[in-house]
Structure formats: C-alpha cells, structure tokens
C-alpha cells in the first residue's frame, strides 16, 4: 500500500490532472478515480466501460497499477471503451 500520484486525463477533456492513487488499486479503480473529476463535469457520461491506457497499451481492468511499472507523475489516459 503506497500512495502513487499520477498525471492523468480523460479522453475528450482538456487538461492533465494530478490523480493520487494507491499502488494496489486496479486499473478499473484508477479509471474511476480519473473519471470522478471529469465525467459529468466536462465530459458527458456514457454507458460504456471505462478503461485505462498507459504508453499506448490498454491495461487489463483487474491489473494492479503498482505492477504496471508506473512511477510518480507518469501519465495515464482513461477513456470510454465503446469497441
């Protein structure tokens, strides 16, 4: 259990945000933590699941973020998966 501050944005939003997560959080939880600040605030909600992308790779929803090899202020992107 360790605090991991990330840089993150949600697709179709305008700004990168400071998102503090726990390194034991799953990608699904990280996606939710990003969405909390954006979806319904500046990006309209949709019924599609939210995924997280890091360096172009979509992370499995149950993967723990600490296992991805992310460091402080590394950048991740959350998005609605409508595929």
């Amino acid at each position, binding site marked *: 259990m360790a605090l991991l*501050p990330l*840089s993150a*944005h949600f*697709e*179709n*939003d*305008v*700004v*990168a*945000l*400071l*998102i*503090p997560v726990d390194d034991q959080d799953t990608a699904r939880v990280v996606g939710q933590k990003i969405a*909390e*600040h954006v979806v*319904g*605030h*500046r*990006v*309209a909600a949709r019924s599609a699941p939210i995924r997280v992308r890091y360096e172009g790779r979509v992370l499995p929803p149950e993967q723990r973020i600490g296992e991805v090899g992310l*460091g*402080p*202020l590394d*950048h991740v*992107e959350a998005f609605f998966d409508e595929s």
Partner: protein
Amino acid sequence: MTGEHAKTRLSRSDWYDLSRDTNWTFRYVTEEAAFPEELSGSHRVSGEAWTRWDEPYKISYREYVHNQVTKDATTYSLKNTISRSKLFDQLDPGWKSVILAHYGAITMPEYLAAIGEARMARFGRSAAWRNTATFGALDEMRHGQIQAFFPYGLLDKEPRADWALKSFHTDNWVVLAVRHLFDDMFVANDAVSIALQLTFTLETGFTNLQFLGMAADAMDVGDLEFGALISSIQTDEARHSQQGEPTIKVLIDNGHKEWGQFLIDHMFWRSWRAFAVLTGLSMDYYTPLESRRMSFKEFIEDWVVKQFAEQFRDFGLEYPWYWDQFINEITWYHHAIHLGVWNYRPTVWWNPDAGVSAEEREWLEEKYPGWNSTFGRNWDVIQDNLRSGNIAATFPETLPIMCNLCQIPVVRAAGVMAGALDSAAPLRHTHNGRTYLFCSEPCKWIFTQRPERFAGHKSLIDRFLAGEISPPDLSGALAYMGLSEAEQGRDATDYAWALGPVRGI
C-alpha cells in the same frame, strides 16, 4: 528667453551625439571588471563594435521630461474626473475581469522591468544604449506607479483591485507563472539578453501591439480611464522597445546571429504562452461581443505573425524552429486554458467570464470553425450542470499538472481533441535525478538548453507533493495561493450565460 538666446541655441542634432557619449577609457579596472559578463552579456562583441549601437528614436532629457509630464497630467486629470463618476459600476462584468487580471499580473512586473532597464543602463556596453535605457528605467517606474495608483482608486468599488500590489507577494499559480517568466526575461538576465528578450521580443513583438488594441477596446467598452492609462504606457513602450533592434544588429554584424536567434526563440515562445493566457482569454471571452473587433487568432496572425515576424526576417533571422507548432496552437491553446481557468475560477483574483452564451458560441464557431464540436461539448456538460442546479459539479477537486517551465497547466489533451497533437502526456526530462514535466516541446527545449537556469524552481505540483501545501487539498491550495473566500473568482455573470437560450433553440 530673449530672441538673441533663441538664435544661438543649438538644434538637438548638433549636440546629441556628443552629449550621449559618456564612454571613457578605463585605467584602474579592466573592461571585464567594469562590465562583468554575467550582468552585461556583451563580451561576444568587442567594445569598439558596441560603439556602433545607435538608437532609432532619439530624445533629450529635457524633451523626455516635458513629454512625460504632459502624459501624466492628462492621464491623472482624466482619472480624477472619472473617479467621481459611476463609470466603473457600469462596465461590462467581463471587462472588469480584464482590468483586474491585468492589474494583478502586470503592475509589479512593470516595477521589476525598471530593474531590467537599469541593468541595461549600467551594463550595456554602448553609451548611447545606456542613455536610452535610463529613459526606459524611468518609463517603467512610471508604469509601476500609475498602474498601482489607478487600481487603488477602484478599491471602494472592487477590493480585489488590491491585487495590483498583493499578487506578487503571494504564490498564486498565475503569479508563479508570471514571476517565473519575468525573472527569466529581465530580473535575472544580462543586458544583451534583456534587450533581445524584453524589448525586442516581448515589447516589439507582443505588448506594444497589444496595448494599442487594448486601449481601443477600453474606449469601445466605455472604460476611458483604462484606455487613457494604456495609451499613456504604450507611447513609452513604443520608444524604449526600440533598444532591441540596434542590439540584434550589433550581434549580427559581428557574427553572432546564432546567439541572437537563440535568445529570441527562447523568449518568443514564453511570450506567446503568457500572451495566450492573458490576452487570449480577454479578447475571445471577456471582452463584450459587441466590442470585439477581431478574434485573438486574427490579432496574432495580423500583428505578430505578419508584422513582427517579417521584421525579424528583415534582420536575416529565421522563424523559430517551432514555428509550425506556434501557428497550430493559435487555433486551440487559449480555448483550453480558458476552460481551465473558468473551471478553476476560485484560484484567480478576477471573475472569469465564461463567454459562451448562444450568441458568443456562434461568434466562436465563425472565428474558430469546429469550436462547437470540440470545446463546445465540454461547455455543454458544464451548462447542463448549471441549468439543473448542480453548481458543485462545475468546480474542481484536484489540481492540474503544471509545466515546469511556463508554470501553466498542461493542456495537451485539448491539442489531441483538436487534432493538433498525437499524445496528451506531458513531456518529461530528468536532470540531476529529478524529473520535470513540460506542456510542449519548446518549453522542454528552453529548459534543457540551460537547465541550471531553471532546475531549482518548484512548480505548484512539486510544492504540493513536497507537503508544502496544507491541508493537501484544494482548500489548502487556495489558502497557499493567498485567496480568501471573498477574493476567489466567481462566474462573471452569475451564470446568466448558461441559463439563457440554448444554442440552436
């Protein structure tokens, strides 16, 4: 004066060159000791070559004092007359935000610019240059004074006019950005670099033109006081900004064009960043629709791109290497910053005007085709929240990532949305074990060219993560930034724009 005396008086051209030549030959110290390179920045070129520095705009001290007294008398008397009227109360709320933002961001830098001018007045290698810069230092003192005094007169109507003096004593995020910029540009800079970066790049390239437009806008919205103030400053700037031209000419004539190009490339980008934030928002969102004569994009294209850029091409300089990125950003960057500033409105000392009513959106779409399908969609969500009474959803709960060079929020995501960038991730660079984040390639380039100049500075995010902001949340950040509840920005029109007719209905 008798007629006899008038006949014998020399014309200025008879004595000007002699009177400004205060150079002498040093016998007790070396040239290097009298003009240390760190402060002068002039030793790429010989002392003899600097004697060919010649200012295009010549003025004597007597003429200078006469002009300045006239300007001050006119401007102050206008202010005294207007201060007894209800003119300020009748101004458009968005325009009030323009002038509040301006006073808080610009008054203290004007004072500090006197240090920059004084550095050229002491460490410029040409006597003519030192003479011109002395007038420049006097100009900047006047600009500091007048831009502190005018908002002082507004205090009973708008207490946040106090930010003209207060802002630079806070760590507000806008002030961190402005202070970082101006420390780089003139407070912690050498004479040659100041001439090229302050007077040539910022003043000739951006502010001199902006002040002309701003004075006209002020008159158009009925703010005679601010219009007179800005005109009075602009006429000084038109004179002292001309120190850049002879300085770049001496560098080029003596084989140091590359150094001049580097200094200009460095500061053109930084000037663009600051200008987009302050002027972009003012022109495209805060100025009342009926008073907008051109969009920010049109202004940049007509004045900065055509006129200034052509001027520096005339000197044989090249467009900065990032020119395509700059041109590209004109269409989207300030829209993203505006959305962010409005969203984070409690963090600024003015009331951001959303400027996105149905009519204003039509104007934005006309000036920036595609605006409605990009930024408009973000504003739709905000508007829906306001119309349903969910105002809390329009406020932020975390901080944006800040660029370690310009100290402005990283909005690359908007560049991706606008189709201009491939990646929203901040750019990274590690120096002496510390990782720095940047909003753009030019900001990263400026940092990496001379990292020792910037590496010690901590962005708002660095301070937050280092535990310097307590409690570690937005309320702690607001307190850290010096904003009491009464000072925090609110929507300029109390959401009137959102509650009116919806676009297309």
